């Protein structure tokens, strides 16, 4: 794997949501329109065959980025390239379909993402109909059977409905459906957060096996740093819609540079009971409608200074990774 072989390039991506009160309320209460910058000027690339993880706390913009990449949402600004082609220029017809089939998404809640009235055969067979219209129904059923086997279920499970499965099995069905289109890129938005840990281990192992077998590229989204460390080659840390730090997994855990990354790492419970000393984590995530000026992390940051309160830090190369922090740039952290 060469490091300069990007499959996905996200460039200055932003997405705003209008969260204003209804017009009449605004007039009566004399309030302005309100916006959330759910994703704000985010740039990263994902190389072929690697797993890039995005971590961040609730509301940091993880799911919004996932949706933007797979085309469930349109960007307010910026663009996304997939295998060198811009996804912005309203691709049409055959080319759009050829490109679309190459990326798929797996969601957090496998129940909500599977049609409850469809049998599993039809759920997994649906992308086959769209992308491999040439298959006879017999061939299609055979292929569904193969996919079910691949994810650790049995071909006989095809006749069942989603509610007949446990949470972990439903996530296997969702993975089989994602694989049906033979994608090379899968966006996984908290694929195991709704699962028990013993089942989470099964699904994480399965995803790694499938990645090895088919050379898949993953964008893996999670709020759990331990899971991310296990899955990712590179990691991006999000805070209030912006990237705070991007580094390869080893570097990020061995030498976290951004104060927010350090704080997140300090908050991970010490399961090995090594007696690792923990720094006290301060404060909570501010309201995203009205984020603090300058570096949005400054009210919680022990290193904040005047510049931090005024100027938004840009993501800069620090020698081993990228950080958006004035303190790191100035060499005081």
């Amino acid at each position, binding site marked *: 794997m060469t490091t300069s072989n990007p499959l996905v390039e996200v460039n200055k991506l932003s997405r705003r949501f209008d969260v204003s009160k209804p017009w009449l309320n605004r007039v009566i209460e004399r309030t302005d329109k309100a916006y959330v910058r759910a994703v704000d000027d985010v740039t990263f690339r994902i190389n072929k065959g690697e797993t890039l993880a995005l971590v961040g706390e609730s509301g940091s913009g993880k799911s919004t980025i996932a949706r933007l990449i797979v085309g469930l949402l349109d960007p307010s600004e910026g663009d996304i390239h997939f295998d060198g082609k811009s996804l912005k220029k309203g691709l049409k017809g055959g080319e759009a379909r050829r490109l679309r089939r190459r990326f798929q998404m797996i969601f957090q809640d496998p129940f909500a993402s599977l049609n409850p009235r469809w049998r599993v055969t039809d759920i997994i067979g649906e992308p086959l109909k769209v992308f491999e219209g040439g298959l006879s129904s017999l061939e299609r059923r055979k292929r569904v059977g193969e996919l079910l086997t691949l994810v650790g279920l049995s071909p006989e499970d095809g006749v069942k409905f989603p509610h007949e499965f446990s949470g972990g099995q439903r996530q296997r069905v969702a993975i089989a459906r994602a694989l049906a289109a033979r994608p090379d890129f899968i966006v996984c938005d908290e694929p195991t957060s709704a699962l028990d840990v013993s089942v*989470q*281990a099964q699904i*994480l*192992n399965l995803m790694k096996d499938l990645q090895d077998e088919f050379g898949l590229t993953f964008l893996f989204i999670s709020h759990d*740093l*331990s899971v991310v460390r296990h899955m990712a080659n590179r990691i991006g840390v999000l805070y209030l819609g912006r990237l705070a730090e991007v580094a390869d997994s080893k570097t990020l855990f061995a030498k976290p540079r951004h104060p927010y990354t350090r704080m997140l790492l*300090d*908050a991970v419970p010490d399961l090995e009971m090594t007696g690792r000393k923990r720094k006290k984590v301060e404060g909570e995530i501010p309201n995203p409608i009205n984020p603090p000026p300058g570096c949005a992390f400054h009210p919680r940051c022990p290193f904040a200074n005047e510049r931090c309160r005024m100027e938004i830090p840009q993501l800069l190369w620090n020698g081993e990774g990228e950080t958006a922090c004035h303190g790191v740039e100035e060499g005081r952290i």
Partner: protein
Amino acid sequence: MQPVLSVKNLTVQFPTRRGTLTAVDNISFDIMPGEVLGVVGESGAGKSMTGSAVIGLIEPPGRISSGEILLQGERIDNLGPDQMRRYRGKRIGMVFQDPLTSLNPLYTVAEQLIETIRTHMPLSPADARKRAIKLLDDVGIPAAERRIDDYPHQFSGGMRQRVVIALALCADPALVIADEPTTALDVSVQAQIIDVMKNMCAEYGAAIMLITHDMGVIAETADRVAVMYAGRIAEIGPVRDVITDAKHPYTAGLMGSIPTLATNSDRLTQIPGSMPRLSAIPKGCAFNPRCPHAFDRCFVERPEPIASGTRRVACWLHAPEEQAA
């Protein structure tokens, strides 16, 4: 020393049209004064049911079908609803996953704290307010004197959970039952809340029954831990022993399946299958279909927790007669 809480052979059942389901099946444990007992297990293991049984909040038709619950030596499982209501708040404080289940949105924090304090303690309104402010200050609410007159929705999620902790402790209970107190919170806030809860209970002298699915929270907080599986206690003992040297095959599998910052292997240990439904709990040891060590006896006879060093382990591998054989 007398335990704060003694649960003896507790069984909780739900009659349904298709037969009786047993959600908690003959479990026993004690919590000593000042101790933090963690109760851990995957969803449906019976953790919350056990907590609900202790505070007398099992929803009918569910009921305690056998066993005893003693609070400071006194039976509380057979009290009437009115008596039980007096115990809750006074002698047992509660903290739930969603702070809004414990807080009334229509009243200010001051009103709720003062009302609870005065229901259980002979204090004047002014003294009760003083106590309430001190509690809020102790749980880390900045400017407590001013914030006390705010409504719950004016606080962030983490701050609300701090208020709930203050409310749970305001009448000096002997025991606090906390059911997934940090599950709904952000990672960086979870650690703060755990700290606050632990320090507050130590300061106010309350023991804690900490129910969670998160082994990390247990490792950070508990003195002892009970690992539940399919309504039963698989293993119970000092946290360090259980975590670093699990004896029950389920605990061992569970520990191996959790990725940690130190995990170096490429694959996680995985336990095959998933926890059985209540309507299909296997005969013998409930873990037998998933257990790599199961042998004949496991499919016939149910293992009860057996003393093994500092612990009790419900597994035939640890029965003296099997170890001799």
